[in-house]
């Protein structure tokens, strides 16, 4: 079984090598690909210098477009499993093998690494937790399925879902919306408990006025997704 780790990178020159080393050490069964989303720092130079397997976008597409590039790559190179892995030190590669096993074992289409199943590790700030809870309830109401951490960036999918995402993937703040998209299609989503760290480098893309935009945009996106057939 060919397994791929997609590492979207936008200005992550300080942490990208650490992320790749983490994968090589703790998830040796996985190949990886760094998607450089037109970074303005030395991310691309570092990828070239250290021979990291990378794909270089020439126009900044945002997280959604970058991750989608990874899914297209996964389809083209015949991978059976693809997992998204953030390069900023939040995720731990030690979980990847366990997630892959779970994917086969439970015959799921997607495995989400959830921070809230066992409530261990960095739990995000209070307000953010409320927001995540809200999306969780929204998904439950619209699909009847329980997803405790719909905003988690640590998600592993099989080839079916990879193909779906290669065709259509939201542009910004893609996580809850894309979960909704496959739930609507009757795909099976399973969660496993993971521990996430607080990010070491960079800042969250969500905060301040953006968070209001985020809540409204993602809510609408999820509702729109429900209307699609």
């Amino acid at each position, binding site marked *: 079984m060919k397994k791929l780790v997609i590492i979207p990178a936008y200005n992550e020159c300080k942490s990208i090598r650490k992320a790749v080393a983490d994968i090589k050490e703790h998830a040796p069964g996985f190949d990886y690909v760094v998607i450089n989303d037109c970074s303005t720092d030395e991310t691309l130079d570092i990828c070239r210098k250290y021979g990291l397997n990378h*794909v270089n976008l020439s126009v900044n597409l945002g997280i959604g477009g970058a991750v989608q590039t990874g899914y297209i*790559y996964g389809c083209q190179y015949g991978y059976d499993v693809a997992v998204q892995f953030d390069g900023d030190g939040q995720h731990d590669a030690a979980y990847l093998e366990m997630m892959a096993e779970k994917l086969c074992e439970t015959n799921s289409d997607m495995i989400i690494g959830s921070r809230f199943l066992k409530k261990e590790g960095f739990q995000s700030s209070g307000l953010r937790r409320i927001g995540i809870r809200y999306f969780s309830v929204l998904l439950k109401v619209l699909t009847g399925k329980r997803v405790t951490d719909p905003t988690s960036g640590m998600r592993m999918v099989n080839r079916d879902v990879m193909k779906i995402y290669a065709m259509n993937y939201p542009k910004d703040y893609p996580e809850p919306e894309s979960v909704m998209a496959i739930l609507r299609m009757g795909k099976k989503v399973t969660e496993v408990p993971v521990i996430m760290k607080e990010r070491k480098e960079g800042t969250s893309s969500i905060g301040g006025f953006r968070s209001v935009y985020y809540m409204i945009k993602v809510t609408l996106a999820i509702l729109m997704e429900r209307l699609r057939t």
Partner: protein
Amino acid sequence: MTVKLQIVIGIAILFVFGILVNMIRKRGLELKYALSWMLVLCALLIFDCAPRLLIVVSDFLGIYAPVNMIFFLGFCFSLLIIFSLTVALSRMSNSVRTLDQMVALNEKRLQELEQELELKKETKKGNK
């Protein structure tokens, strides 16, 4: 509306029309997107030449002052053009995204093929 104003407006319309045609000629403006503007100019020109028509139409629509009708129709038309631009922009951003991704993946494939080729050359040299 005085005849003097009619002439001034007429000249202004023709002037703008000239600019529009020149832009299309120089390929600075896509004919597809210029068509809606040309339509507006034509409508304006017709009303400018026959102000009585304006009164007839506004009476028909139940609008008291013909000027209000101009404002109203102009506003509606502007919204229509802006909306069509938003649609065009959405399409464009989707195309740019797809193109960017394809270019990036092709570049990657090219690099891989180059490496493979070099490897083959080296093994050939080694065999000789």
